[in-house]
C-alpha cells in the first residue's frame, strides 16, 4: 500500500476519482496482474456524490429499455447484492412499492410493468388500493393502486465504496488521496497526470471523476458531453419513525426524475427525498429552505405521520446529469483513454457492472488481463446495519475485545472499538466525515450533544491530527 507516495515507474492504469465507480473499477482491475493507481482530490474515498444518495439497490425496472444503463443496472444489482452478502455490507431486501395517487398514475402502472419486463425484470405485480393499504397502512388518503417491485433493496453506500477500495488496496492498488488531477499530457505513449503531489504516469487512463468527468474529459482534449449538476435534497428522520413503513415507497416516475420517495435505511432511519434541481456549481451541496419545504409537502400526502417525527439530518447530493439520457462511457482507443461519465442516478447499483464493462473495454483495446494467482480477499466490513449483529450487542466480540462494549456515540450506539478500527490501517479515517461514514458516530439524533467532544478528542488522538485541523479552524 503506497497511500500518498508518487512512484517513478508508470502504472498500467490510472483511475481518476475514488467514488463508487472509480473504486469499483480499481477493485475489478485488481483481480488481474495490472498495476493501478487511483487519484482522488478529496481526503477520502467515496467523498463525492457517492456519499450522498438515496442508498437504493435498484432492480432497474424503470430504466430506458435497451440503454447501456439498463443493462448495467440490472447486472450490477445482482453483482452488488451478492458482494454485499459476502463482505458484510448492510443490505435489506425490503422491496419497493410504487403508489398511484390519481387516474393518470394508475393508468401508467401497466406501462411501467411492461417497461420493467423490457428491462428484464418480471417480478412486478399490480396491486389494488386495498392491497397497497394492507402492505402500508400508514399511507395517506387517496391511494388508487400500486405496483410492487419486490426486488428493490436498501444498502449501505459508504461501506460499499470502502469495501471496494479496501479490497483493491489489499491487492496492491495505490490510492493517492488529496491528489487532484489538474493536467493530463501524453508523453512518449504515456499519460502524465499533474497532481499537487507530483506527476503520476500511466499507460491507460480511466476518467471516473463524477461531476468533474467533463472537466477531466476536457483535460484530455475531448468535449463529448457537459455535466449539469442536478441537486437532490434529502431529509433523514429519526429511527423511531422506521415502523411507519415496511418498504420503499416510490412515486410514479416522470421523464426527468424518479421523484420523491420515502425509504427505510439500513441504519433504521427513514429517508425522504430527493428533490431535483439543476444548479451550476458542482460544490452546491447546501440544502435549501424551499427544497426541505417541498419534501415535507410531499411527505404530508404520502405518509402523513412522518412529518410529526423528529428530523435527524438533512443533506443534498449532486447527480452528474448530462445532455444525454444514458451513461457516457467511451473508449478513445488510440489515446488509451476511457471516459466513464454521466453516471447520474444509478451509479451505486451499477458500479460493479460498470467496472466489469470498463475492464472489458480496456482488455478489448489491448490492456493485458492475466488473472492473479492469488485472488484478492473480500474484506469483512463493520456491521453498521440494524439487521446485522451490531458490536454493542455482540457478547462474543465484547468478550474478545472489551472496547466493543464501550459505547461512545449513544444515539447510534457506536463503540470505542469501532472508532478505533475505523481510524487504523489502510484507508483509515482521518477526518470527521470519514469517521462518520465508517462508523455512524455523531450521525444520530443528537448530532453530538452527548458525544461530539469525546469523538473529536478520540479522533484527534487516533489520527494524530489536531482538533483545530479536524474542525476546519486551521485552514
Amino acid at each position, binding site marked *: 500500500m503506497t497511500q500518498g507516495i508518487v512512484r517513478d515507474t508508470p502504472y498500467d492504469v490510472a483511475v481518476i476519482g475514488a467514488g463508487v465507480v472509480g473504486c469499483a473499477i480499481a477493485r475489478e482491475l485488481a483481480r488481474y496482474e495490472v498495476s493501478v493507481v487511483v487519484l482522488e482530490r478529496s481526503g477520502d474515498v467515496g467523498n463525492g456524490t457517492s456519499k450522498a444518495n438515496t442508498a437504493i439497490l435498484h432492480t432497474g425496472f424503470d430504466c430506458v429499455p435497451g440503454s447501456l444503463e439498463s443493462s448495467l443496472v440490472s447486472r450490477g444489482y445482482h453483482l452488488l447484492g451478492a458482494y454485499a452478502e459476502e463482505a458484510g455490507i448492510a443490505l435489506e431486501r425490503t422491496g419497493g412499492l410504487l403508489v398511484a395517487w390519481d387516474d393518470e398514475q394508475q393508468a401508467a402502472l401497466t406501462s411501467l410493468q411492461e417497461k420493467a419486463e423490457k428491462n428484464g425484470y418480471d417480478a412486478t405485480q399490480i396491486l389494488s388500493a386495498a392491497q397497497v393499504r394492507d402492505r402500508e397502512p400508514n399511507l395517506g388518503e387517496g391511494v388508487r393502486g400500486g405496483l410492487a417491485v419486490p426486488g428493490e433493496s436498501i444498502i449501505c453506500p459508504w461501506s460499499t465504496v470502502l469495501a471496494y477500495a479496501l479490497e483493491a488496496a489489499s491487492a496492491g492498488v495505490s490510492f493517492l488521496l488529496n491528489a487532484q488531477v489538474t493536467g493530463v499530457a501524453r508523453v512518449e505513449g504515456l499519460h502524465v497526470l499533474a497532481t499537487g503531489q507530483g506527476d503520476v504516469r500511466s499507460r491507460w487512463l480511466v476518467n471516473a471523476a463524477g461531476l468533474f468527468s467533463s472537466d477531466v474529459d476536457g483535460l484530455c482534449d475531448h468535449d463529448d458531453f457537459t455535466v449539469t449538476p442536478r441537486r437532490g435534497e434529502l431529509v433523514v428522520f429519526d429511527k423511531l419513525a422506521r415502523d411507519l413503513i415496511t418498504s420503499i415507497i416510490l412515486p410514479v416516475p416522470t421523464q426527468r426524475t424518479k421523484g420523491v420517495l420515502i425509504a427505510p435505511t439500513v441504519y433504521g432511519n427513514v429517508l425522504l427525498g430527493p428533490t431535483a434541481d439543476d444548479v451550476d456549481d458542482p460544490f452546491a*451541496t*447546501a440544502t435549501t429552505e424551499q427544497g426541505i419545504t417541498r419534501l415535507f409537502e410531499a411527505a404530508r400526502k404520502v405518509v402523513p405521520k412522518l412529518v410529526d417525527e423528529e*428530523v435527524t*439530518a438533512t443533506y443534498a447530493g449532486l447527480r452528474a446529469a448530462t445532455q444525454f439520457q444514458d451513461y457516457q462511457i467511451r473508449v478513445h482507443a488510440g489515446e488509451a483513454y476511457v471516459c466513464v461519465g454521466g453516471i447520474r442516478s444509478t451509479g451505486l447499483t451499477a458500479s460493479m457492472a460498470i467496472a466489469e464493462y470498463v475492464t472489458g473495454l480496456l482488455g478489448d483495446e489491448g490492456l493485458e488481463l492475466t488473472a492473479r494467482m492469488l485472488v484478492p480477499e473480500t474484506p469483512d466490513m463493520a456491521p453498521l446495519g440494524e439487521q446485522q449483529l451490531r458490536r454493542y450487542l455482540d457478547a462474543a466480540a*465484547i*468478550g474478545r475485545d472489551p472496547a466493543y462494549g464501550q459505547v461512545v456515540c*449513544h444515539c447510534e450506539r457506536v463503540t470505542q472499538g469501532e472508532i478505533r478500527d475505523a481510524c487504523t490501517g489502510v484507508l483509515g479515517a482521518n477526518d470527521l466525515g470519514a469517521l462518520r461514514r465508517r462508523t455512524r458516530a455523531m450521525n444520530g439524533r443528537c448530532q453530538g450533544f452527548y458525544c461530539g*467532544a469525546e469523538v473529536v478528542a478520540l479522533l484527534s488522538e487516533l489520527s494524530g491530527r489536531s482538533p483545530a485541523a479536524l*474542525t476546519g479552524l486551521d485552514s
Partner: protein
Amino acid sequence: MTRHNEIDCDVLVVGAGPAGLSAASELRALGVVRVLVLEREAQAGGVPRHCHHTGFGLRDLHRLLSGPSYADELVRRALASGVQILTATTVTSLEKNGQAHATNSSGVHDITSRAVLLASGARERPRSARLVAGDRPPGVFTTGQLQQWVYGKGLPVGTRALVIGAEHVSFSAMMTLRHAHVKPVALVTDLEEHQSVAPFAFAARRFFGVPVWTSTRVVAINGQQRVREVVLEDVRTGAHRVEAVDVVVFSGDWIPDYELARRLGVELDAGTLGPASDDGGRTSVASFYAAGNLLHPVETADVAALRAREVARALVKDLANDSTSSSHDQIAVRVEAPLSWAWPNRFDPLSPVSRVALRAKTFSGSRLLVARQDGREIGRERVGRIVPNRSLSVAGAFLAVADPGRGPVTLSLG
C-alpha cells in the same frame, strides 16, 4: 454465542443524572434493598457535570453549588445511602415483563427487577432537527456539546459566535463562549422577547455587550470547511441579512430522550413528548416509572431532583401494595394553544394533585386557566405572567372534581 450476564435487583434506575440519583437515594432511604443505577457515561452526575457555573442545588440541597460540585454531592449521597452505581453501562432496551438489557465493557447484561425508573434526561434539538438549511460545516454546536468541548476536553471553539435561543440555557452558552475566549455576537430568538430572567439579559448587554436579537430567525448556515456566515431573517418584515461568524450554538429547544420508553411501548404525551405520567411518574406500562427532564423538558436540576424523590415515594408505595398501577386508566390532561403542555398529564382523581406545571408558546400577562371536562367547566385558576420556555406552576386542587367517566380534562387560557 457468548452468554449474557444476569443481574437481579429490586429497582433499576436508568440514568445517573440529578433525577436518577435523587430517586435512587430516596428509594434506599425508604427501605428498598437493592437499588441499581446504570449510567452510560464514564462518570455519574448527568448534565450538571459539564455546567461549570454556579446555580445548582438551591431547592434540594439548600445551598448554591457549581454544576460539577452539585453532581459530585448527589453521587456521594447516593453511594453513602447504599445505592449501587454502574457507569459506562448503556441500557439498550427494555421489555414489558420488566427485563432490561445493557452493555458495558464486561459484556451484555440481562437485568431483572421489580420496577424500573427511567431518568434518561433531555437533549437540545440540534441544527438539523430545526431544519436550518445551508452547508454542513464544523462549527455548529448545541450548548451541551459546547460545554463538554470547552470544560471537558479543552478543545478549540472558534472566534465569533451566534447563540440561537434566548432562554436560561442560552445565557449559559454565552458564558461558556466567553470562558473559551470566543466573542458572542448576539443571542437570537424568533420570539419578541428573551425568555430568561431580566437580570441575565441586562447583565449580558450591560457587562458583556451581548444583545438579544428578537423577532429574528435563522434561515441558513453557509461555509464549506468551516462556518463562514449565518443568514438571518427579520420575522416581522421578512428581510434577510448575513452575519459573519465561525461558531453557531443552538441552545434550548429541548426534547426528552424517550427512545427506550417509546420502544418499550410507553405512551408519550403529545405536549411534553415525554412519557405520559401522573405525579408519581407512573407511565402507561405497569412497573415502569419516569422522572426528571425525561418527563417534561426542562426544569432546573433541583426541581428535577425534588420531583424525582416524589416519584421514588410513589414507586415504594406501589411496591408495598403489590399494586401494578399505571397511568393507562387515568384521566388525561390535554392543553389548548397557546399552552404547549401540562404535567402531570395523567391523574387519578382519588389522589390529589398538588401542583400542575404548565408551558405556553407565547408571552402573555396574567390570565385565567380554565379546566373543562366533556365541554363542561370544572375549575378555574388565575396564573401569573406567561413566558415561553419557562414553567408556570398552579395548585392542582381544581382537578379533584374531575369525573373518571368523562374523558380527558382540557386546559385552556380564558
